[in-house]
């Protein structure tokens, strides 16, 4: 299906048009997710998407920005992330160079107001989102918020409520168009109640077998139907095993299907399975625990 280039305007936005637009951009969304996105856009409330890794949480924000024809601003969270990485930082080397150039000038106040101006400001994602000046609101993706510290989560509470940033040397910057905010979390820790309260909440889990097959057919062109079914069956088997530490998500299934296309495999046999299992199993311990023969025999019993 070819993606139409025309972005969806906020006036034309309905749940149906959103589902259609998502599918045109090769994102298979169920009606529930589309409703959640629709509400997040209309209510201009942040949408917190939690769920298993590799289930399309980040992708949905990228596709949404594409659908609305707007900019995606991404903030990748990690342990130790602080305000200077998320909001702004002064460009110290450039400021020093500039001061050096102006050494002969006497007016200190003039120099100060120059070096602490927007010219020397390194805008990080949150400030970029606030200062964004486009016809459509930007999509702000705050990815893997569970990896950030609780202190940063506390800061976000204020940011998401006001959409404003205070820079002591410049003043308070307020947003012109409230961004569409999507937060994702892999649930490596529980997100605080305060943040959850400010967001709409959607939980994604591994898709049912039929939906995963549909995703494979849509995203991996020319994939043999029998092979697609076999791949989905094996992935589902792996997900149901409690001893597998890193369970494969949809992205792993897609990687696996692409690998199958590259090696020209028509069906899943012992050699192909053994050599390509690394696409879905990403831990040595898990690989050691897997018995390829028993996987294949279970697969053949499933037909």
């Amino acid at each position, binding site marked *: 299906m070819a993606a139409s280039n025309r972005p969806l305007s906020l006036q034309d936005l309905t749940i149906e048009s959103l589902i259609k637009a998502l599918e045109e951009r090769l994102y298979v969304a169920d009606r529930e997710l589309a409703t959640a996105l629709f509400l997040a856009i209309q209510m201009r409330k942040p949408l917190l998407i939690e769920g298993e890794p590799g289930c399309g949480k980040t992708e949905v924000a990228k596709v949404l920005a594409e659908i609305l024809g707007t900019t995606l601003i991404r903030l990748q969270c990690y342990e130790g992330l602080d305000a200077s990485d998320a909001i702004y930082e002064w460009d110290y080397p450039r400021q020093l160079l500039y001061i050096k150039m102006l050494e002969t000038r006497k007016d200190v106040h003039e120099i100060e107001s120059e070096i602490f101006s927007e010219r020397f400001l390194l805008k990080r994602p949150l400030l970029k989102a606030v200062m964004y000046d486009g016809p459509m609101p930007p999509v702000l993706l705050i990815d893997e918020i569970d990896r950030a510290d609780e202190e940063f989560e506390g800061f976000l509470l204020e940011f998401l409520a006001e959409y404003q940033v205070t820079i002591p040397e410049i003043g308070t910057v307020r947003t012109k168009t409230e961004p569409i905010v999507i937060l994702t979390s892999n649930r490596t820790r529980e997100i605080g109640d305060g943040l959850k309260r400010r967001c709409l909440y959607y939980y994604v889990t591994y898709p049912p077998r039929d939906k995963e097959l549909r995703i494979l057919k849509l995203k991996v062109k020319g994939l043999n139907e029998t092979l697609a079914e076999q791949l989905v069956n094996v992935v589902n088997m792996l997900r149901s095993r409690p*001893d597998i530490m890193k369970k494969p998500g949809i992205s792993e299934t897609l990687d696996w299907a692409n690998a199958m296309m590259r090696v020209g495999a028509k069906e899943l046999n012992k050699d192909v399975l053994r050599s390509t299992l690394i696409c879905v199993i990403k831990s040595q311990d898990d690989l050691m625990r897997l018995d390829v023969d028993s996987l294949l025999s279970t697969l053949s019993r499933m037909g």
Partner: protein
Amino acid sequence: MDAYRFVVEVANLLRERQLKVGVSESLDACQALCYVGSYGLPEIKTAIKVTMLKDPSKFYLLDEVFQQAIAEASSGRDEGEEGDQRGEGRDRGAQSYSTVSAAKDQNRDQQHDRTVDAFMYSPMETLHKRSLRPIDPLRVRTGRRVMRRMKRRLALLEGRRYRRSTKGELDFPKTMRSALGTAAELMELKKSSRILARLRVVAFFDISGSMDTYTEWIVRAMYLIKRLSRRVEVFAFSTRLLRITDLLETTNLDEIRKRLSERIDLWGSGTRIGSCLRTFLERYGTLVDRSWVAIIISDGWDTGEPEVLRESLEGLKVRVGKLVWLNPHADKPNFKPMTVGMLTALPYVDVFAGASTLEDMSSFIRFFGKSIKPLKSPIKPVF
């Protein structure tokens, strides 16, 4: 049907089921209904779900609450006298009430379309709640001292502080300081490494019938372990698993006793350790990684399949950094682990100790003395 009344009904019903639904959620739900009101029931349900239900383990409540709210909001009954009756019913807290149609009443004309609150069978009533004794603050204080030692003993993550080490990283400030004594000539390179000080814990408390005699100790231990570190998750289990971390998030001992008494309905039933751990791995598995320590507090009496227990422990063992099992019977002299559950579990356990280790320093030293070796390559945090 009045959308606002419907939202209020849903919010109340969710609160009755111990969900944290505030006014802001109700306002969001009202606003969301304005946008999806022209769509069908599934969209309305999704709108309620995304605005009010923010815990995936409680999603199963949605259908039940939704149906009940529709019935209540569309009943159009008199708010006065009956509203008071309903309020009283809710005040009864743990006791469930059901709205039963009074259509069978002889005075059908007078009672037309009216409903009364009456008690009837509910599966909720068969669950085991327990009135717990007050928590002894003196024993808690003793326990805290042991907990500080335990934190240092179990820590798998590096903290901020350094200590001298021959294998550590080059310590520039110390090297420069030592060079001051030799006229700033570098004679020796000083090295230091970070001290293991940070701990993440997931604790599983067996509150089945076989642990009945230890109930008081269990409640104290829940309180103490929750305060072991900033990142602690606490679960209670018997025939099913229940996450109780939020119940312990207060420093008020009496409030904790009240919450554990009123909200845990698993006290004194059977034990299925294996299936409960499997539920944990399936539902909460992503919460933990190799930097976490799992502590299981159980006597090992298990009515489930040993194979399920073995598989679940194998899964848990690979997911966490250390696995500790505290068995209250292990404090007794001449104790030997003989239960099937214990025999199945022991090969996967890094430390097997008695329950008194949490409160008694000498017992702690006896069991934890040298039983835990630090990881060869400690986990480095990013500050």
